[in-house]
């Protein structure tokens, strides 16, 4: 049994039968699939792009955006600050301050574009890497630290921030978001330009999960105002995109009967433009919409991961040339929309943020032991109350102990 027997057709591909419909030609070879999915790191012909990797503004026939120099600078600032927090998170993990960190490096444009397209009345459901979206929703980066330090599972209020808690079980949040969006519709908040919408974030790997499918089925059937924002960062831990699909992910939408758009995820303008459009479609009652943001995970999957085991550095080098921050910086300079003073002030602000972030981390309180038992239920059970009391008095026993170094 040779690997070829199943990884690609054995020997010569069977002669194409000419009496068959064109649409059902022999399946592509493995190489063709990979080429179609990734080899063009440009994302292919359908990629929506407004800013080239060289920072040049280009027009798009369907999606464009009017944007002021000030807004451009704000987007730049967002991305720099978010990246800085992210890098500090990584460093804090290396210093043993955090158990783990999930880096967003490289995905700033996708996330800030999407996040800034959201309006206050909208709701966002993140996966676990959406520090940029969190930022755009007004959640201070320090509020993420508890998750990775192990003191809590996210300290923000999902309702008032319009930003649900991070969801780690791949795909789950897509259904939760769809249900929330159904509720927006049931509440009569959909059908005009000032309506509400929901955006849900997930990765390329997540698209294989049943829950993501069900979310797409449901949102189509209930006309839910939900934007499925898939960050295709080319990898699900060590697995490249071709372990999840044969065709570009945005094409999934056609099977459900709603629009699917592939956007350059390293282009914050394109991400913003397409996200705005998609959210407006949802507000107006034309949801759902799928967006595939074509981007790249520049760092490891998490700080526990070692990507040198499964991917080549030249891939990473190629993507460096498409860096989301650098291309906006070049654009700002080229357009004389920002001067050195601006860039310096953003850097200074990033330094301050970094310091505050680190400082916050160092001084975080450990949760008290009774927290183990808190909020299991809205209406606590006597059983649990008893367990808590027993445990606390057990702990109190240690405090009373005078013997030092003893086992008990």
């Amino acid at each position, binding site marked *: 049994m040779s690997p070829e027997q199943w990884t690609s057709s054995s020997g010569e591909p069977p002669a194409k039968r000419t009496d068959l419909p064109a649409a059902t030609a022999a399946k592509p070879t493995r190489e063709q699939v990979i080429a179609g999915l990734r080899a063009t790191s440009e994302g292919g012909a359908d990629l929506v792009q407004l800013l080239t990797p060289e920072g040049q503004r280009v027009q798009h026939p369907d999606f464009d955006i009017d944007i002021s120099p000030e807004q451009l600078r704000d987007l730049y600032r967002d991305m720099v600050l978010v990246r800085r927090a992210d890098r500090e998170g990584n460093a804090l993990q290396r210093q043993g301050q955090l158990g783990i960190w999930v880096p967003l490096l490289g995905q700033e444009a996708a996330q800030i574009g999407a996040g800034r397209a959201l309006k206050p009345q909208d709701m966002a459901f993140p996966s676990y890497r959406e520090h940029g979206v969190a930022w755009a929703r007004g959640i201070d980066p320090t509020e993420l630290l508890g998750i990775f330090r192990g003191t809590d599972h*996210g300290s923000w209020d999902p309702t008032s921030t319009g930003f649900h808690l991070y969801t780690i079980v791949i795909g789950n949040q897509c259904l939760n978001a769809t249900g929330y969006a159904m509720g927006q519709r049931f509440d009569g908040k959909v059908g005009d330009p000032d309506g509400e919408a929901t955006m849900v974030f997930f990765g390329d790997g997540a698209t294989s999960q049943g829950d993501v499918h069900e979310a797409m089925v449901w949102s189509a059937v209930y006309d839910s105002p939900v934007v499925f924002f898939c960050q295709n960062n080319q990898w699900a831990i060590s697995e490249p995109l071709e372990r999840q699909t044969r065709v570009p992910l945005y094409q999934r939408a056609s099977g459900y009967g709603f629009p699917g758009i592939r956007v350059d995820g390293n282009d914050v303008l394109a991400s913003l433009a397409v996200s705005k459009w998609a959210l407006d479609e949802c507000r107006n009652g034309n949801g759902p919409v799928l967006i595939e943001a074509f981007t790249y995970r520049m760092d490891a999957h998490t700080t526990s991961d070692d990507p040198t085991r499964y991917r080549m550095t030249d891939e990473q080098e190629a993507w460096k040339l498409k860096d989301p921050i650098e291309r906006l910086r070049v654009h700002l300079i080229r357009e004389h929309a920002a001067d050195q003073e601006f860039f310096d002030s953003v850097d200074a602000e990033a330094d301050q943020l970094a310091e505050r972030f680190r400082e916050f981390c160092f001084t975080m309180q450990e949760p008290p032991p009774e927290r183990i038992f808190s909020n299991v239920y809205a209406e606590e059970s006597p059983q649990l109350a008893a367990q808590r009391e027993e445990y606390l008095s057990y702990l109190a026993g240690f405090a009373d102990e005078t013997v030092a170094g003893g086992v008990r």
Partner: protein
Amino acid sequence: MAAPALERPTTPSGTQTVTIAKALNMGLRASLERDPKVLIMGEDVGKLGGVFRITDGLQKDFGEHRVLDTPLAESGIIGTAIGLAIRGYRPVCEIQFDGFIFPGFDQIISQLAKLHYRSQGKVKMPIVIRVPYGGGIGAVEHHSESPESLFAHIAGLKVVSCSNPVDAYWMLQQAIECDDPVLFFEPKRRYYEKAELDTSIDPLPLLSSRVARSGSAVTVAAYGPMVRTCLDAAAAASEDGLDLEVVDLRALSPLDLGPVFESVRRTGRLVLVSEAPAESSVTSEIATRVQQECFYSLEAPVLRATGFDTPYPPSKLEEGFLPDLDRVLDVVDRSLAY
């Protein structure tokens, strides 16, 4: 633990004879009337009124926006119900049959059970999952399962089972009013058993067990469909001069074992009865807690009459698989033999 204050329903009050099925329908109707945020979701719950007709007439009276025929996907039902709950709704999900809850298991375990905890109380999950469960109806595979123990093991869920029309009516409304997720197990083989329902009498708290029949010789504790079986067994035993106490557990998690402990301290003997296989189950938990709490009172080990540790068999064999009056009394005899 005080009973939640349920407003009196505007629908039929006073005493009437109803089936469990009808009582559940009345309970749903009362909840839909009481709170506009209550939604009913599930497969075939609309026009058809559910395969057991528990939601009969509700879509007609409350509209498609309150009673939703969903796509055929249980993870979708639970997963979107969670989103709706975050939005402020109180979804009541129907799982068509016990065996079909498993595609929705992940959303139940990973999200539903945990969201209140992980959000430190900021996100409530007032969701009821109704599950017609258990065997004895001559059904094909996957239609006679008793999966309640799987949920009882999971912290953050409340698990209850009703055994009669009065509880069906009240417990369902209480579950819907509860701010926590409740797995509501309905004894489908008993759907058409009748009793008097007096809607003017105050209900017991949702999470409480109750003595269904007083006795002194042996305590028999059961829930859901097996309560009837145990009461029948007690009636038969009393003809033989044997006086059994029967406890209807009602709450499977968290358990309310006070009445069981109290009873066992009097009788010294306990027999637990369930359709579900015994292994690592709710009955195991009760036995464990009873031998702890009543160690010096027990005159016999806690014994069980349950489904066997096999998959649910083809229906021609279910009579043997399910504990019946004879098997309950056989185990009672064994308890008395100590």
